[in-house]
C-alpha cells in the first residue's frame, strides 16, 4: 500500500471534519505513515477463508419491551446546546438561499 501524501492527509482530515493547520498536517503525515507501516504485518496472514469477527459475545436481535416511559425533558436535553431558540437547537443554514 502506497504511503500517504500531504494531499491525502489533507483529504482525510476533510472527510473527518477536522480543521488542521499545515504544521499539524505535516506532523500527521509522518506519524500516520509510520503507523500504517506497522499494519503491513497483517498482510503476512492468509485470511481468504476466515470470517470477520465484529463482536465477540454473539448476542443477537436484542429487543426491549415496547413500553412508554419517561424521557429527558426538553429543557434538560437542550441545556448544553451552544445556541438555542425556544425548543430548538440553532444551526447555521444548510440549504443555500434560505438565509433570509
Amino acid at each position, binding site marked *: 500500500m502506497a504511503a500517504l501524501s500531504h494531499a491525502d492527509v489533507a483529504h482525510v482530515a476533510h472527510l473527518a471534519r477536522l480543521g488542521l493547520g499545515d504544521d499539524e498536517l505535516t506532523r500527521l503525515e509522518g506519524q500516520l505513515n509510520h503507523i500504517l507501516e506497522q499494519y503491513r504485518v497483517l498482510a503476512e496472514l492468509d485470511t481468504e477463508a476466515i470470517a470477520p*469477527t465484529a463482536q465477540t*459475545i454473539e448476542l443477537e436481535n436484542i429487543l426491549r419491551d415496547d413500553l412508554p416511559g419517561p424521557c429527558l425533558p426538553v429543557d434538560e436535553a437542550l441545556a448544553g*446546546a451552544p445556541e438555542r431558540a425556544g425548543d430548538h437547537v440553532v444551526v447555521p443554514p444548510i440549504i443555500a438561499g434560505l438565509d433570509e
Partner: protein
Amino acid sequence: MASAAELRALTRLHVREMAARLRAGHFTARELAEAHLALAHAQDRALNAWASFDDERALAAAEAADLRLAGAHAAASAGEKVAPAGLPPLLGIPVALKDLVVTRGRPSTAGSRILEGFVGPYDAHIAERLDEAGAVVLGKTNMDEFAMGSSTEHSAWGPTSNPWDLDRVPGGSSGGSAAAVAAFHAPVAIGTDTGGSIRQPASLTGTVGLRPTYGRVSRYGIVAFASSLDQVGPFGRDVRDAAALLQAVAGHDERDATSAPLPVPDYPAELPDPDDEAAALLRGVRLGLPREYFVKGMEPGVEAAVRSAVRALESAGAEIVDVSLPHTDYGLATYYIIAPAEASANLARYDGIRYGHAVRDGDVLANYLATRGSGFGAEAKRRIMLGTYALSAGYYDAYYVKALKVRTLIKGDFDRAFAGADGQPPVDALVAPTSPTVAFPLGARLADPVAMYLSDACTLPVNVAGLCGLSVPCGLSEGLPVGLQFIGRAFDEGRLFRLGRAYEAITATADWRRLEPTDLPKLDDPATPTPAERTARLVRR
C-alpha cells in the same frame, strides 16, 4: 471527632475494614468521606489524579449512609434482627469515577477540551448502581483524552504522576483512577479498559485492576471510544476490594444492548479471608503460560518478577503448562485498526451543535472544522484520522475487514488454549505479564505514538477477543511495581479473582507487599512541582 492524623489513617483501610468499622460505629461515613476528600484535595496539585471533585454530593451521600447505619443500629438495639444483607457492602465507602462516567448535573470531560463545560443530563447505569449501594462518589479522575493512551499524558487537563515516582507516568488511560487508589485518595475506583486501560495502569501503580468480559458491565452513560472493545471495571488496593466494586456495578441493563443477560456470581463470597484457605484455591488449577507474551522489549526485571510469580503459583499447587497463542504479534496492528475505526465513528458526534465545545466560523462545514480542529487533542486527532482512512472507500477491505478477520484468528488462539488442542490440555486461565515495562518517565513516549502503543502489547489481545483479564501486583523492578496478568474465559471473572486472591495469599509475607508508594511524602510538600512542570523539565533535558 478524630485528629487529622487519625483521619488520614482511615484512608489506609481496605473496603471490608471500612465497612466493618462503619457498622461498629468507630467512625461515620461523613468522617470517612472527609478524610479522603481532605487528602485528595491537598495532594491534587502534585499528583493531578482528579479532573473534578464533587464534595457536595459526596457529603450528602455520606450523610445518607450514616442515616441508614443509624437506622440499622436503632433497629438492632430495639431487638430487631438486622440481616447483614440489609446493608449493602459499599454503604458509606468512597469511590472515584473515571472522567468519562456521566453523572447528572456534574461535569464529565473524558479528558477532552471538546467536552469542556459539558454537564451530564442523566446518571450512567453504574452511577445509579453505586448510588443504590450507598457508595460515596468523591469525584472524577483524570484520563487520556477519550481513553486513548497508555500514560494519561493525553489529557487536556495535564498529565498525572505515578505515586511511586512522580517523574513517571501512572499508565493509562485510567491513570487518574490508578494513581488515586495507589495514593489512598480512594479505596476503589472505576476505570474503563478498551486495550489495557485498567490493567496497564494497575500494573504500573501497584494496584489491582480487572477488565471484565465484554458485556459484563453496562456502558449506558459511559463516553464511547471503541464500542466493540470498551468495558468498565474496578481498581482496588487488593483483590477483595476490586471484587466488591465489580459486584456493585456488574449485571444486565437493557439500556445497553451489548450487556449480557447473565446472572452475576457473588464474587466477594468466593474469596476467603484466611490466607491458607485462599492459597488452597490453587490446588488442581491448570494455568497456561503463553510464550508469545514475553515480548521483544520486555524489561529483564519485569520478566524476572513475572517468572518468579509463576514459580510461586506452581510451588503452591498450580500446574503450569506452556501454551502458544501464535497470532499474538498481530494483536497490535489489529487493535490499532479496529479501535481507531470505531473511534472515528463514535467521535463524529462532537460537532459543536448539541453540546460541548463550539466554535462559530461561518457555515456549517466551517463550524465543524473549527470546533473539531480546536476541541480535540493530538492523540484523538491521530486516531480519528487513522480510523477515517481505514474506513474510507478503497481501503475498507484492505485495513478494516482484514483486521476483523485477524480478530477471528486471535480469538481462535484463546479458544484453543481454553478448550485444549494440539496435544495441549485445556487450561483454566492464562498467566502472563501485564505490561512489558515498569512505569516510564513523563514525556518519554509522547513524540513516538508507536512506542506508546507497544505498552499495551500484552493486554490488547484480551480486548480483541472479548475476554476478561486481571492485573495484580507481583513485586518490584528497579523500585517500581510489576503486574501479573490472569486472563480468563468469557464471564469467568470469579475465577480470576480467586486466582488473584490466592496469589496474594501465597505472597502475603513478601517484603515488597509492605511497601507504600515511594513518593507519597512528596505529595504533601507545597514546593513539589506539578506533573506538567515535571514533564516540561524532563522533555527539555
